[in-house]
């Protein structure tokens, strides 16, 4: 009887291979994923820079916003903003955030620059077991963003430091979601930004 239970147990166990061996990232894949994550985040900030500067056509803005919303962020992706004078940040959906930045840029050009200050590395990727048993990962990287709302054009001077009506430097943290997906019937890893939050703001 005991033998029977044991055999049945083994058969039952063996009949759920997905539970036994969920695909996980190899070390080499983790390295590649981290590079991809960095590219995606840089891609987002590159677009923010252009929208804020308002130096591109509306048609191009639409393309860029679509690219970021569909290719860089999860549908529920959000971005937080916080002014140096505010205690609380404001979180918007990614589409809303990009439209707000584009709208601000139209009123008054904004200079945005950034640098990645804390890259995502393989050891920072945290595995997560989902309800269906699959494994996904999350990781974070940090970016320092310079933000300068320019004064009206008739007030601009050669003194570059004095040309900002408002200026701050923000440390932002991007949370990256890495999950298993299907593409053309093949199993692939998807890399998206889940959210971007504000860690600190310093008025310049």
């Amino acid at each position, binding site marked *: 009887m005991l033998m029977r239970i044991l055999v049945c147990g083994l058969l039952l166990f063996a009949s759920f291979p997905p539970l036994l061996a969920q695909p996980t990232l190899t070390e080499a894949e983790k390295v590649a994923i981290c590079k991809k994550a960095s590219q995606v985040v840089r891609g987002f900030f590159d677009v923010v820079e252009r929208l804020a500067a308002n130096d591109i056509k509306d048609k191009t803005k639409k393309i860029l916003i679509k690219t970021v919303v569909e*290719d860089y962020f999860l549908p529920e992706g959000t971005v937080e903003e916080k002014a140096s004078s505010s205690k609380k940040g404001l979180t918007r959906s990614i589409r809303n955030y990009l439209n707000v930045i584009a709208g601000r840029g139209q009123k008054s050009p904004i200079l945005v620059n950034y640098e990645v200050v804390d890259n995502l590395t393989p050891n920072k990727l945290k595995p997560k077991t989902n309800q269906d048993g699959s494994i996904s990962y999350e990781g974070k990287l940090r970016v320092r963003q310079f933000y300068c709302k320019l004064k009206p054009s008739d007030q601009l001077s050669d003194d570059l430091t004095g040309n900002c009506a408002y200026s701050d430097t923000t440390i932002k943290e991007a949370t990256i979601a890495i999950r298993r997906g299907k593409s053309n019937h093949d199993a692939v890893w998807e890399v998206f930004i889940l959210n971007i939050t504000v860690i600190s703001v310093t008025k310049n």
Partner: protein
Amino acid sequence: MKNIKKILFLSTIAVALLGSGCSNDGPKFYTLTLVVTQDLGLNENAILNEPWQYLLNYKFPDSCDNAVVIPEVTIVRADLASNKDNEAQIPLLLSGFNAWRPKSLINEMMIQEDYDALLPNMKYPPILTVKSGKTVDAASLLANYPGAIVTSLDKSGEALRKMMLSQICAGEKKSITLILTGGAATVPPMITAADTTEIESPTPIAGDALAAAFSTLIDLKKSPDERSEMISGIVEQFFTSDGTIEEMGEGNLRLPVKPVENYLNSLITSRTIVRLEILDRKMKDGRCWTVKIKEHHQ
């Protein structure tokens, strides 16, 4: 080259491009140098007129036992000096040909052989290249291109084709130079002579043209608007309407396949991609080309 698929190696990204073509017979290659002395006035949407269609066509059923005969075409603007001022004019000429050529490749070629096995030293279909020459008179032109055939575009394209192909198919020549009369240079009509230049290093497939187009797309000196406006042309020239890009990374990491336009749109503002390098080209499944391109990031 159409139906592009891409494999991206992250930070060092590769692109696989699926082009097309189908054939029953092994292709024959030859070089065709067209020396012109004026802008041919071609543009991407223009339909090539009859002489050009004959000159650049791939299939010559009446001349080469139904073989596909692929001209590797170089166009020399002899009236333009080789300097930077003229560089801008040349792609205009090139783009018209290159836009026409992939379509022709789809329509005309029925290549099924594996190019790698068939032609180890000439793996890839050729592309059109354009280079500037030096401002020359008729005598200099003839001196610069010994053995060239001087002819006019007014002449029957079919007659030209038959004349060229009779030599190509018979294996007498692998290279033909035509000096096309008109424009600034005045040259005597129709001089036929033998050209015995052998093909040594074939011009690579449209991968070069693709890489050139991508390089322009990632050129930071161009505004995002300019880069954005290039995309439809690149898609039209190199990809099928359902062309896709597949990203791959180190460790054989696989990322989602995405429409080619989405990928190109992501390059509009990219500041990190500094170079795109063609890694490998091969015929895939007898219909399409796969080209891997490596992205170099800062």
